[in-house]
């Protein structure tokens, strides 16, 4: 782990195979934003089909095979890949890989991550996983098409799944390496004086997230290996005896269980959803403290709540499996844990709300996104409650209500928080601020159209429209009353896409022409703002860092400024 900052680095060492956490963080960030964009494009093709079933798809129709109409098997393929890409290749790498990598060492005053080479390995493993996932579209078998949940037996019979599994093994490995690194970095490399309760909330959120990844991902890796065996070596871990598939009995030993996959999958995938939300909450906490010009209210309760949330997230997974024939005892257990886990979320949100009281709120672009996060996550979280109660889930399970629920938490929730983070830390990364005007032009339409896409989903869900329907429910009698929403949602989605144009322009324009700013343009308190912008390669800070106070000392009575940086005596 030689870390010699003196010798000259060539282009490859500096920008491609770098071991500097900042470069790796940027690599993560750029790759994952591209994947987010790509995942969104897949969804727009699907949304076209949902609004105007079986009509030719404009612009990209020629990519869809002989006819330029989206066929059901391609619809399923795009759906599965949208879910996979958004979660494993988009949000997690952006929230943990990019923000975790770039910001955490800076916020704790460390020169780099604890294991720089491992860090690079983590990125490249992610990259390979991403390439495999992308390549699967061009393989003769096509990409996976059994949903991102890959429930067997379907996933064993369908094509394309093998590539998906191999890709997942790389992605899992990447996450494991990355989060081990984050844990060690946070435990070991905190600057002198930076005790646990002086850590910014963002660091805490990343810390808990890293534990979730380290401990929840391996069982999915095990499951992926088992599914790979089922597909490649014809074992039958997930196949029961007596299967008849397309007219013929399936020639395997049998005696396996499809539910085993669901247990192992959700053992990861439930903690995973908190992996998506915790870093987002961390960003929102930092941005809110900065723009309210006052300390986060109930900092300690925030920390305890997120640790508790992380712990509980390991024992709620089967609320995704209520309708697999679960009996009274276990359904009661999982309903109870699900209700318990909603409490820390309420605590966190409450603390954020109360932080607003008595504040002096600046409506900067990052703050707008962070503020919008609150009610949007509120809607998403609250609609999780009827899903968490087994009895009401009977009606809502696998309907668009679920789709609405989780998109509210991940899209206007997490994605907004990530946008907030990008606007907030952009000056640290480039030394230039992003344009506020373009930022607002990005924010308002995004807010409106996000709701336009996802709000009607609750209506369709209450009507009982199933998810993953190729024609959006045209055939079903009970969907007739709510079908008209499909076109509305799709148009909103296209407008949402258009609303991202100011953002993309903003990123590129501001990178070269944005307003130049000094190292602490927001008047922030946390340690990263005492480093130069951009921070020193391979060292981050010019000298030794020492921390003297808590993370959010804004508007301290008697202080001469309205912020007291952690590094100032």
């Amino acid at each position, binding site marked *: *782990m030689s*870390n010699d*900052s003196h010798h000259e680095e060539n282009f490859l060492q500096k920008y491609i195979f770098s071991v500097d956490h900042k470069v790796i963080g940027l690599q993560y960030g750029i790759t994952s934003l591209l994947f987010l964009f790509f995942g969104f494009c897949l969804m727009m093709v699907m949304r076209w089909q949902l609004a105007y079933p079986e009509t030719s798809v404009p612009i990209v129709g020629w990519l869809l095979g002989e006819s330029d109409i989206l066929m059901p098997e391609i619809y399923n393929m795009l759906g599965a890949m949208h879910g996979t890409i958004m979660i494993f290749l988009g949000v997690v790498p952006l929230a943990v890989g990019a923000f975790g990598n770039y910001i955490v060492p800076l916020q704790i005053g*460390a*020169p*780099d991550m*604890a*294991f*720089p080479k491992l860090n690079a390995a983590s990125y490249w493993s992610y990259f390979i996983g991403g390439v495999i996932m992308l390549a699967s579209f061009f393989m003769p078998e096509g990409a996976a098409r059994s949903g991102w949940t890959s429930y067997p037996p379907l996933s064993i019979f369908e094509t394309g799944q093998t590539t998906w599994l191999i890709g997942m093994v790389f992605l899992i490995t990447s996450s*494991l390496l990355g989060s*081990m*690194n984050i*844990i*060690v970095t946070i*435990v*070991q*490399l905190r600057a002198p004086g930076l005790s646990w309760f002086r850590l910014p909330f963002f660091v805490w959120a990343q810390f808990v997230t890293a534990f979730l990844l*380290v*401990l*929840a*991902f*391996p*069982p*999915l*890796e*095990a*499951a992926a*290996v*088992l599914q790979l*065996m089922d597909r490649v*070596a*014809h*074992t*039958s*871990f997930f196949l*029961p005896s007596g299967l008849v598939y397309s007219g013929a009995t399936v020639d*395997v*030993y*049998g*005696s*396996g*269980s499809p539910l*085993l996959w669901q*247990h*192992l999958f959700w*053992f990861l995938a439930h903690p995973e959803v908190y992996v998506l939300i915790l870093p987002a909450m961390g960003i929102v906490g930092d941005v809110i403290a900065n723009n309210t010009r006052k300390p986060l209210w109930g900092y300690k309760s925030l920390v305890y709540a997120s640790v508790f949330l992380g712990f509980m997230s390991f024992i709620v997974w089967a609320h995704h499996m209520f309708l697999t024939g679960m009996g009274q005892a276990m359904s009661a257990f999982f309903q109870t844990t699900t209700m318990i886990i909603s409490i820390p979320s309420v605590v966190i949100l409450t603390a954020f709300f109360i932080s607003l009281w008595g504040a002096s709120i600046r409506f900067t672009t990052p703050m707008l996104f962070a503020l919008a996060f609150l009610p949007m996550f509120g809607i998403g979280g609250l609609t999780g409650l009827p899903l968490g109660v087994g009895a009401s889930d009977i009606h809502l399970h696998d309907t668009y209500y679920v789709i609405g629920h989780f998109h509210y938490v991940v899209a206007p929730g997490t994605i907004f928080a990530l946008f907030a983070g990008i606007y907030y830390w952009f000056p640290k990364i480039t030394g230039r601020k992003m344009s506020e005007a373009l930022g607002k032009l990005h924010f308002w339409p995004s807010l409106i159209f996000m709701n336009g896409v996802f709000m009607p989903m609750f209506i369709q869900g209450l009507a009982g429209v199933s998810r993953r329907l190729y024609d959006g429910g045209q055939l079903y009698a009970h969907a007739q009353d709510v079908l008209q929403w499909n076109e509305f949602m799709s148009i909103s989605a296209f407008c949402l896409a258009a609303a991202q144009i100011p953002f993309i322009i903003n990123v590129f324009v501001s990178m070269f022409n944005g307003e130049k700013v000094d190292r602490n343009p927001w008047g922030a308190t946390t340690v990263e703002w005492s480093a130069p912008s951009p921070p020193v390669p*391979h*060292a*981050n*800070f010019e000298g030794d860092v020492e921390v003297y106070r808590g993370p959010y000392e804004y508007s301290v009575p008697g202080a001469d400024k309205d912020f007291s940086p952690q590094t100032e005596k």
Partner: protein
Amino acid sequence: MQIPYIVEERPDTGLNNSKLGIWVFLASEIMLFGGLFSAYVFLRMAAPVGDFAYWGSKLSIPMATFNTIVLISSSVTVIMSWASLKMKDFEKYKMYMGLTLLCAFLFLVVKYFEYTGKFHHGIYPSSSTFMGIYFTLTGLHMLHIIGGMIVMGYFWLPFGNKMWQSDPERFTNRIEVAGLYWHFVDLVWIFLFPILYLL
């Protein structure tokens, strides 16, 4: 700027980076094998009564017992190699590490005969759920053995000499970490042995 606590311990945690790192890694390994053990139990319950025991009886207990002893011995030799470094005896380290590698190799050879023996009798992972999980668990365990051999082999070859001369503290540290990993591989086998062969 140098990353702190690579070799020396951080005063408040009493740990160096790689020590903590390896334990976090092992924690994730526990969950990996935990997932597989969970699958084993689940499948055993789903299978017809006696099915697992019937197929399990096709495995060779003597071979596995021998392998268990081999792995346990390698655990001892690896810790002896670390202890030798602590006592600044590089030659002894070389010998013990060589023995460890030898044990690992022996384990693989026995495993090779076990596998091919099964194949000759027409037994493959697809033959039964038990055989499926047997091949998966032992196969994954073997991959861990091979991984460990690569790391330890790296430190055993001439490269080790150089590092020992330039930075003995760090080298000892590396061996300790590699040893921890190796003990874990041994530990997994301690559970695999009874659940696959004896029950």
